[in-house]
């Protein structure tokens, strides 16, 4: 372990190598390209592959293919590129392909302000693809969290055989910070489960009584079937309600029932807190500073930074904010994640603090909005 002074994007790139990344496919986009450029310099030296494809669609499909060739795979993008990737994110969900998508949010909609920040895509990150299931979404607010959550994203994707979205933003991407950089052996690295039966007995979508099936790769003699159609345990197309129910509930449960394990947050001054400022990503830094300003004015304010946005661990979030009077959801959009929390905190006053700002919202502005409700 050593400390380095690096940006959030560099932290993602470095952590992905530590986590075992072997294949990166990408297409240039602001504010993400420096992840790609760092990996293009460093990953091939360590036996990995970095290839620029013709668009984001090809990039994510190549990453899915590489994952089926046993390589831990990643792509990185921003809003316009993520929109193009959604079709194949859906493919990765139904084929249970481990894959990490680093999504560095910028100002939208459409081309928006490509170099500046926002959190408009927080719901798209998990709900954007067709098929109505949940993709785990981890959101760093600092370069250190970007590093740690990248390792986690790979581990979760391997353990659950699911795509994972690492949801950063333009501020985190290019803010420098002190980061504890770790080597292989200094972090826990999880690899997907492999089949323990003969190729003849192997069924690629049989979870063997659990929720996650062991995964054979191309070239191992298992005659694997990567199937985008609704399929049974063999991977055979089965347009039947009972099969669809079994598949949907298993894909749903394997992610949602991991919500307690995936739950991750940081909090300050939670003891005796009356007014909690809940936030995520770079805006969490504004919320934390705003809570400090409010405390200085005599309010019993605290801040909570959520690092896992999806799946929502309902009991965990409710338990965390149990003693709090009012919950303020501070975010750099029109008030999106607020909807999720309002659904979880039904017996509490939950107030949306939506601040549109091309940079981090100023703490004074956050505190000013919150005070109107106190």
């Amino acid at each position, binding site marked *: 372990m050593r400390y380095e002074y690096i940006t959030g994007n560099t932290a993602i790139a470095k952590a992905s190598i530590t986590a075992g990344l072997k294949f990166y*496919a990408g297409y240039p986009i602001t504010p993400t390209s420096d992840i790609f450029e760092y990996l293009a310099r460093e990953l*091939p030296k360590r036996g990995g592959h970095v290839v620029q494809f*013709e668009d984001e*669609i090809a990039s994510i499909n190549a*990453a*899915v*293919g590489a994952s089926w060739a046993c390589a831990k795979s990643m792509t990185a993008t921003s809003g316009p590129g993520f929109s193009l990737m959604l079709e194949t994110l859906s493919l990765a969900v139904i084929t249970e392909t481990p894959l990490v998508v680093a999504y560095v949010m910028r100002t939208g909609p459409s081309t928006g302000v490509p170099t500046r920040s926002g959190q408009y895509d927080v719901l798209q990150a998990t709900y954007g693809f067709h098929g109505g299931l949940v993709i785990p979404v981890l959101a760093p607010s600092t370069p250190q969290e970007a590093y740690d959550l990248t390792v986690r994203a790979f581990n979760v994707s391997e353990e659950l055989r699911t795509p994972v979205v690492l949801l950063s933003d333009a501020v985190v991407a290019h803010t420098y910070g002190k980061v504890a950089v770790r080597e292989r052996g200094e972090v826990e690295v999880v690899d997907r489960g492999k089949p323990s039966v003969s190729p003849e007995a192997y069924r690629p979508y049989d979870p063997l009584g659990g929720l996650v099936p062991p995964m054979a790769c191309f070239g191992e003699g298992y005659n694997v*079937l990567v199937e985008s159609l609704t399929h049974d345990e063999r991977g055979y197309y089965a347009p039947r309600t009972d099969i669809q129910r079994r598949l949907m509930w298993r894909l749903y449960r394997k992610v949602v029932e991991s919500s307690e394990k995936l739950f991750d947050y940081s909090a300050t001054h939670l003891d005796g807190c009356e007014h909690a400022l809940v936030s995520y990503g770079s805006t969490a830094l504004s919320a934390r500073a705003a809570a400090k300003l409010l405390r200085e004015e005599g309010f019993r304010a605290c801040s909570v930074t959520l690092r896992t946005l999806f799946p929502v661990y309902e009991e965990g979030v409710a338990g965390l904010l149990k003693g709090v009077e009012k919950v303020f959801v501070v975010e750099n959009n029109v008030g999106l994640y607020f909807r999720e929390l309002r659904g979880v905190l039904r017996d509490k006053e939950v107030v949306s603090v939506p601040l549109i700002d091309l940079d981090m919202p100023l703490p004074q502005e956050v505190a000013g909005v919150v005070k109107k409700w106190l």
Partner: protein
Amino acid sequence: MAVGHPLDPYLRVDRIPTMWCPGCGLGVVLGTLLRAVDRRIREGQLKRENVAFVGGIGCTARMSLYPLFDSAHVAHGRAIPFALGVKIVKPEMKMIVVGGDGDIAAIGGNHVLHALRRNADLLVVMVNNMVYGMTGGQLAPTTPRGLYTTTTPYGNPEKEINMVRLAAALGANYVARGSTTHPQLLEQMFYKALAKRGMAFVEVLSTCPEIFGRHIGFRNPADLYLELRKRVVVKARPSVEESDYSWEKGFVLGEYVDRDEPGYIDVYSEYLSRVLGSGG
């Protein structure tokens, strides 16, 4: 006791019969392709566990479901980048992409363009029935001008795409046009294509009597087969100038390009050895 088919060892026999309509040309394509693979395996030039089939969406893409090999049935138009992702990580794999004219030339157009430019080490089999069959008869970029489709009910006004010319222009190592009316020739093309490094692109003219035939007055499978047969002519080593795509003037079958330039894996491996050789 049931008598097996000689290709049964290469098939997921529990999935037979296929989903294809009577008279569809795809059975001929699958049969000739598997015979060619079988020959290469028996000659020791291919390892069975290193052969994989990848299809996007459409009747042809479903061809990936039946062979007893590693297979992927992915998103519409996206078989090529999926296959290239596998190939880069495991260059020992022989990746066979199967797709229809819509899957490869329309929605997958950008991917095939760049795979051809890269001379990517894939065998791409584009089965061309000149229509969107699975979805019921809509316009394809290969639909002959003037013909009825359900989305151009007054006759297709557009110029057709000539994938042979495109593949030759962008630098594929092997470019051929075959037809289900000439299975022996087709098998020979696949056999040859399987041994190539770089991109091997084979367009296969095929019959869809249920959709394409029905809409243009050849509902009977034999009638459409004979109609297509009438419109194709085989040439030994035709030039690319002879590849014109025309329902009216007919189609020339043959091997348009057969060269041995470095493939993508060659140039990429050379790049990697430069990286490793420089000591970082």
